């Protein structure tokens, strides 16, 4: 019922590799390749916030306890939970 809290060791991704947004470390950037979320309303919400294919996302700040994460996209910053970041497939660019 509740989210598993231990996300395990995050994969270390190099530029050009594919993964989930939740795998990125602070300062890394990725381009959104695909995007899915089981919750219809939440998916719509994230679309409205500008998470669409091809958009560049940078990990800006991580909450002191590791979750949620503050990401930068389209010139502004957005806070989302790791659980939702896992539904965002990215290609690392930096």
């Amino acid at each position, binding site marked *: 019922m509740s989210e598993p809290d231990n996300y395990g060791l995050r994969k270390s991704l190099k530029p050009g590799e594919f993964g989930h947004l939740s795998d990125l470390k602070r300062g890394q950037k990725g381009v959104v390749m695909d995007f899915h979320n089981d*919750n219809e309303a939440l*998916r719509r919400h994230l679309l409205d916030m500008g998470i669409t294919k091809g958009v560049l996302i940078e990990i800006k700040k991580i*909450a002191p306890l590791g979750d949620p994460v503050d990401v930068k996209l389209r010139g502004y910053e957005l806070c989302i939970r790791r659980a939702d970041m896992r539904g965002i497939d990215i290609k690392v660019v930096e």
Partner: protein
Amino acid sequence: MLIGLVGNQNAGKTTLFNLLTGSNQKVGNWPGVTIERKEGLIRGSGDLAIVDTPGVYSLSPYTDEEKVTRKFCLTSKPDVIINIIDATSLERSLYLTTQLLELNTDIIIACNMSDILEQNGITLDEKRLQDLLGVTVVRISAKKGTGIDTLISYLKNRNYLKNPHTRIYEEPVQNEIDHLEGDLNNELEEARNPKFAAVKLFERDPYFQALTNTSTEQEIKVIEKTYGMDAEQIIADQRYDYVTKIKESCVIQKDVGKSITDKLDQIFLNKWAALPIFVVIMGLVYFLAVGLVGSLTTDFMDALFNGSQTINVFYREVPFAIKGLGPLLGEAISNAGGSEWAADLVQNGIVAGVGSVCNFIPQLIILFFCLAILETTGYMSRISFFLDRVFKKFGLSGKSLIPFIVGSGCSVPAIMSARTIEDPKERKMTIMLTPFIPCSAKLPIIALFSSVVFPSYGWIASLSLYLMAVVLILVNALILRPFLKSTSSSFISELPAYKLPSIKYVGRDVYDKTLAFVKRAGTIILLCSVVVWVLSRFTWTWQYVYFLSDSSLTDGALKSWQVGQSMLGGIGRIIAYLFIPTLAGNYSWGAAVSAIQGLIAKEQVVSSMSVIAGGGKILASDIFSFFASNGWAAYGFMVFNLFSAPCFGAISAMRKELGSTKAALQTVLFETLVAFTLSSLIGTLGWAVNGWQVHGL
């Protein structure tokens, strides 16, 4: 003429609204300050009505307060919408604009935050923005008040550009949408905004399905296949494409390095420092309000109402001989030939009752001031950001923190601010648990008894109560969690840039809240004081109790015996049995009836005790002196009053926000049960320490 004010959260709508109308609606630096539409008239005009709406990122609503905005845009037929956009995040702001431009309404764009563009390294060509969008763009700074006159003149002269209805989608998509628009069933109410409805139909929004008879499912599927995305994605994608192109041709962004906000966040959101900083800041708030200022002013304020020889300032006795308002009035009435009971009513009923609450005004001002600072600097959003992970584990959201902090001022706005939480379960739990936070009306109770528990370190006792409130919330969240339906929760928010608090708005906020408190003291507390006075001064046969005598008693004991013969004493003696464990073995009708009155308003607890004690220092009176010698009883009594059923105002706010009387009553019952159990446990511990002695029975 009806004007709407629509924009993203924290874009400055309410600040602009206040400027345009000259009113004083509450503003803050966190997303979701405004939760209901507010109406006003533009200053200097007779017929320009303007409506402030809760912030939204799109016209697809996720929370109740966002639905208010969508409903306004779609059904209130505004003549023009002022779309306030945050110039520092142009793309996200203009995304909403593309939706507003599909409405059958003209739009004026108010480009806000222009005063901080430069420090963010942004150069914006608003002429070009106006040309590209085809709508009137006015550059304003709601904070500095620039550009407001231009905006008003556009509204008055109605010389703004008409809605251009630009076709922004790529050819196949746009064609399909045009096709859908042509086939709309125009008789229906929802067809008032045909372009918007057509896009919604394309996205398969069920709300609009009644508008069309033609099945376009086939065509939409073909388009989805060519783009490799579903319809919703296509629309969002192409809106953003359009917006990005506009941004790129009218904005020049220079790299200015790390912003002040980023630098401050390195400290406030530091992995190791964040939690200690939070604890220190919250501790400081309560130390200032309850400890420092309290020890400085409470005795002084009390002297003004009840008179004194010496007062206690910073735990030191200072000579301060003053007659006090109550004794002065009482004497004046006696001298004028008034009856004994009339003097008693004024001196020990009204002045003592209202005064006992007003004693705490200086402390409340400090508390309100600190809360306003937390709200306006942007720090509050950081707290909800970094505690989200903890709260999530308990079935709450990081956003629950905002109601909890606002709740230390007053539960009513706090319960309402829970509307910004998307997940219904998290929202419901937040509403149910918010009253556990000691609100400002409970401060008099805390301040009165804390000094008894830890003499000279009263603020530690009060801090412990706030910590206990947090623990209670978390434990009860765990208890409640299985009873509420769960959907997958989320946390989508923003960290607003840090701002220096505006003296004007902080002052306004403190003034409004203090005034509300004083008003309550002058109305409901005054009324209750009179009622309590009547009930505590007359027997069931309407005999004035101070005329009763019992020669076997000494002075102080006689007085408390006399009051005990009153109607209130009779009622209280029955309830008092329930409170024996809470009061560590003390049977006190006065404490029992006062606790019940907390339902009306929590300040009333102290006020009632003051009237029953007959004015003067409450804990020095014979009836309540047991508190002074028994810290357990004082602590148990505080715990009951702090965590039991909130006042009627908060109960009705809960009823409204939970949408059911039954749920509200269940919550109240649940809270009271928790408070009663916990206070009984604490009191019983003290009772055992004292060797199970029962006093007063």
